[in-house]
């Protein structure tokens, strides 16, 4: 789409709105005052350096700092820049942020948002192309969001900030410069509610983040072949909207999970496993998943493309499942 609000601007607008509403919302990040990714652009001008804090290169402490700040009354937002950097901070994410409320028997809530660009960005290579959402979702205690368009970017950012729990908001790196309209419907400001992107009769495609648009294009091609696919965008990865998926599969009887994370213990497999268990009797053919294989992301563009999910691969997989290959 060539009109509407840029994805990163929508994120920024969500942050700005939350900061206007609530003085305890504070933003931390390396160069957050200057905005490497664009999603914090201009916030320093409006909110000043007391609330937009440029951070030293110390991610583990930055992420832990948010836990303490939240416990002491703030609503910290942490700009981690690139999702590959979550690994440096995993102790504070998995052992602290994800567990403190539970361990304390519910004494504290930790309204924190951690956000970062995620996934391949075009030859960003192995250490800047991770999709850590399965790893984060595995932790229990951390919510995870991956919006697929500008409207969700803004509304889910707002929902994440207002949520009383640690939320990881992953911005698809490739979508940063995409544009789209913003829904003003306050009902859209909700986590854990999936979106029916397109209705269809034959097959349910569950598509995450950047793959939603691919699925949409695939649907148009397939429609001409008289294959009608239904597309579900979960929007929130954890806890995800199971009901919208199961209802869809009940109708279509065919299920394809399309995800950006690697296969083994990835998110696509999780949804597939749930469908296989809970909608088994509706399934007409084996449920399938489409995701990158178990490798790091290579640098060369053609190798990256070879491994990544694409419109073409969705089409081929759907045809196969429909017995049309």
């Amino acid at each position, binding site marked *: 789409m060539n009109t509407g609000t840029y994805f990163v601007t929508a994120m920024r607008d969500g942050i700005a709105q939350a900061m206007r509403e609530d003085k*305890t919302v*504070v933003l931390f990040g390396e160069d957050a005052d200057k905005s490497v990714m664009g999603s914090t652009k201009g916030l320093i001008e409006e909110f000043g350096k*007391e609330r937009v804090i440029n*951070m*030293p290169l*110390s991610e*583990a*402490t*930055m*992420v*832990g*700092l*948010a*836990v*303490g*700040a*939240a*416990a*002491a*009354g*703030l609503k*910290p937002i942490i700009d981690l820049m690139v999702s590959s950097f979550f690994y440096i901070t995993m*102790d*504070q994410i998995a*052992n*602290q942020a994800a567990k*403190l*409320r*539970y*361990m*304390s*028997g*519910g*004494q*504290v*809530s*930790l*309204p924190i948002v951690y956000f970062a660009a995620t996934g391949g960005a075009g030859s960003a290579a192995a250490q800047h192309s991770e999709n850590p959402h399965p790893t984060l979702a595995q932790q*229990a*205690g951390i*919510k995870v969001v991956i919006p697929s368009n500008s409207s969700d970017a803004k509304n889910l950012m707002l*929902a994440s*900030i*207002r*949520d*009383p*729990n640690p939320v990881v908001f992953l911005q698809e790196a490739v979508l940063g410069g995409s544009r789209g309209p913003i829904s003003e419907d*306050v009902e859209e*400001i*909700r*986590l854990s509610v999936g979106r029916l992107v397109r209705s269809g009769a034959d097959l349910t495609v569950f598509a995450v983040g950047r793959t939603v648009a691919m699925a949409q294009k695939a649907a148009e091609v397939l429609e001409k072949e008289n294959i009608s696919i239904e597309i579900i965008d979960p929007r929130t990865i954890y*806890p995800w909207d199971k009901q919208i998926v199961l209802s869809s599969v009940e109708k279509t009887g065919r299920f394809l999970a399309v995800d950006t994370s690697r296969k083994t213990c990835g998110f696509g497999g999780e949804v597939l496993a749930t469908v296989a268990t809970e909608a088994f009797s509706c399934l007409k053919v084996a449920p399938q998943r489409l995701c990158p294989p178990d490798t790091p992301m290579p640098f060369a563009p053609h190798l990256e493309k070879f491994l990544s999910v694409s419109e073409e691969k969705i089409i081929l997989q759907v045809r196969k499942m429909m017995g049309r290959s």
Partner: protein
Amino acid sequence: MVGEVDKSLSLKGLRLMMRIRSFEESVQKLFTQGKLPGFVHLCIGQEAVAAGVCLALESTDQITSNHRGHGHVIAKGGDVKKMFAELLGKSDGYCGGKGGSMHIVDFASGMLGTNGIVGAGIPIATGAAFANKYLKSDKVAVAFFGDGATNQGVFFEAMNMSALWQLPIIFIVENNQYTEWSRTGDLSVGTTISRALPFGIRASSIDGNDFIAVRQTVGEAVMRARAGGGPEVVECMTYRWHGHNEGEEAFAGHYRPKEEIEAWKKRDPIEALIVHLIAEKIISPEEVEKMRSEEKSLVDRAYEFAVASKPSDESEALTDVFAEQGGVK
């Protein structure tokens, strides 16, 4: 005993230290009897640090702690009934039995969490200090951790940040000279104080078995921090009388010389304070024993309370993962 601390504070300190000692001794007994689930790290011998530091704080100030945290919780104002109930995994425990010894949390008294991950409380305290400054409150945050934890990278990262922003935080290094079963001197190069210097952080190393010294040094540091003076490091030299964790004897071997243990036991922080207070005529020997037995019976009653407390309902195991969404406007 060095320095001066007012009488009522000293008496309060003595009482707290006795309470901690009593609590730990009774935990130890239960452990030996096999009545305690999990494993526990006792702070017997280190009571003056917990008491001296926490009596320099207001109840609204925050602390984070580590695996050896019972003393910190008690000194910060924790209720031994709820602590004991927690150690027994009961519903009346601080965390309803979901936390246990290494995860006691008591937000009401500013205790943001003991911690099972060595060093992990340091960034958390730094965040609390940031919030205090941001919110223009005059609260101070304290991170308690051991000499072993000074080898975790987050210690340095947090010192840099807190110096950069002049946060109201005191890093209390409880130096009992051991990292588990190893002499920390065999694992660490350089003193704790020297590690603070690059960041321009005021640092001191004191006798951690001297309640009055701890209270006074930390009291001054807290006053400076409250007034915007920024972070400080206070290293308290001390010793744990017991093993790293209870029950280690079967595995650990004799990694500490008997003489060393004996020498440190002669420097019992509680007895030292008693001698001082009696010499200063602040307390009489009879009052000491009365206090001791009061604290012992407080702990005994806490244990009884804990035993009588109901186990949490099994369904509790599934709650408190997420706070309820109240945020949608």
